[in-house]
């Protein structure tokens, strides 16, 4: 008797849920078709483009194996830029994250830091890079600065969230011994967020390698620049070699960062 009405309500809720899902699916299909029509998507050129692409692809092979020796240095440049940007980002994001978290920083400081981070994250690396090129000229420096800044932005945001998730009792217990705020940070906040800092820093390193290739294409040097010049001079076999090397670089950096991350999550290497 008493269970009938709640069951009925549950069934009505389920029916409503199904209706909502059906409407959402329909809406998605309609929107896709509508936007395809509005943007004049030409299905004919799509088909011919594929044919052209295949014949263009033939120009890429075989890769220019002899180019490897002179591409090793640009590969190293890209790697080093990514590495330095990540390290700078990790070091500088810590104070930014502390200033941005509600359980550590006073309100005005927190708001200022949060808006700085939001602003920074609002500008894609490539836009920052172009602005910096206007200041420093072409070269490694603007790329390095752009990547460092965006590393700070991302890591500071993630870390600030990690700091705000620390149990308040843990901080209070340290504070209640008569510790100063800086001692609370040193002995409660930093040990608790160190795993997050390292794990996210490693992720950021992978990202910086890939982003470094792109920034290279717009003037930061490294393997991206090689690729760009090869494509522009229609030296496709050389571009193919650069692509292969980029693949290897990205793959290796992911393997390295994965193995480090696994070790961190095991709880070792953390003291």
């Amino acid at each position, binding site marked *: 008797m008493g269970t009938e009405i709640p069951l009925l309500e549950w069934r009505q809720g389920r029916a409503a849920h199904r209706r909502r899902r059906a409407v959402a699916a329909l809406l998605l299909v309609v929107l896709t078709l509508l936007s395809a029509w509005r943007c004049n998507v030409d299905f004919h050129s799509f088909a011919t483009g594929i044919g052209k692409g295949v014949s263009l692809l033939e120009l890429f092979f075989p890769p220019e194996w002899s180019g490897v020796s002179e591409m090793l240095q640009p590969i190293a440049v890209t790697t080093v830029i990514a590495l330095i940007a990540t390290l700078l980002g990790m070091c500088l994001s810590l104070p930014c994250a502390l200033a941005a978290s509600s359980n550590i920083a006073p309100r005005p400081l927190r708001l200022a830091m949060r808006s700085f981070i939001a602003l920074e994250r609002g500008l894609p690396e490539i836009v920052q890079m172009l602005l910096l090129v206007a200041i420093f000229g072409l070269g490694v420096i603007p790329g390095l600065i752009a990547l460092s800044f965006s590393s700070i932005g991302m890591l500071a945001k993630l870390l600030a969230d990690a700091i705000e998730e620390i*149990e308040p009792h843990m901080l209070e217990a340290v504070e*209640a*011994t008569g510790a*100063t705020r800086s001692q*609370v940070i040193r002995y409660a906040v930093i040990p608790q967020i160190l*795993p997050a800092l390292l794990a996210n820093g490693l992720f950021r390193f992978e990202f910086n390698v890939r982003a470094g290739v792109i920034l290279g294409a717009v003037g930061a040097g490294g393997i991206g620049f090689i690729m760009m010049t090869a494509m522009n001079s229609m030296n496709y076999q050389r571009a193919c070699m650069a692509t292969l090397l980029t693949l290897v670089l990205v793959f290796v950096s992911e393997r390295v960062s994965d193995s480090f991350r696994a070790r961190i999550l095991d709880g070792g290497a953390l*003291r």
Partner: protein
Amino acid sequence: MLQVSNLLVQLPTGKRLVNDVSFSVGRGEFVSILGCSGAGKSLTLRCVVGLTRPTSGEIRLTDPRGKSYRTTSVGAKELRRARRHIGLIFQGSNLVKRLTVLENVMLGRLGHIHPLRSWLLGFTDAEARQAMEALDRVNMASCAARLAGSLSGGEMQRVSIARAIYQRPLIYLADEPISSLDPRNAEAIMSILQPLSRETPVIGAFHQPAVVARYCTRVIGVRAGQLVYDGSAQLSSRQLERIYGDANSETFAEETAAQPLLFEPGLQPALHPSLSSGVPV
């Protein structure tokens, strides 16, 4: 000796969470505060360490040489100085989980260490040795190198007592130290606290009148923020009813439903009292 006089904690709405509570605790005492959840037990203890600032009232701690420390209406620096002498034992998860057990114990004396030394050098050998002795007193020396996060609830509670012991305070405060523990672990904790109380007074909040009757020397009963009993730890059923009320009555339901959160707006939360008053970083 700890002296609490006319302690009042009032929300901006006018509701009094702790209403004119006065008591003092002296040598050799093991005092238990009893009362329903939300009666003001924890809040009173939080006021004593200055984690919550009371609306009015005075809390004074006096050492054997007659020097006294206050945790009410003082600046951040003086509050920190007073806190060095109060050993706080929380319920449950107050340890820094990513530090080792030994490091957690050494945190007890941070108030005596210059922040610059904390950042540049860390703890000394002598400090580690004394912290080990404190761990030994609670039978946890063998776990010194483990991460605090890997301990069981009972073990964490013992480490947090070791931290308070290492602090060498003038008084121990224990906020529901056995609430989250099974009966055997609870007994173990009480039989650590009882001998401690002979050297240094212990005041704790508890929910177990039977356990309290066996270990404590005195009970303070609070109900809806007011002190309703102060006397022997052996409570008669009438005295128990005075503290806890009749579980079937309407006022009981009302009182327990009106549990104030410790971080309720209007009460100053965790780090803020000292932060807003400009603690040097």
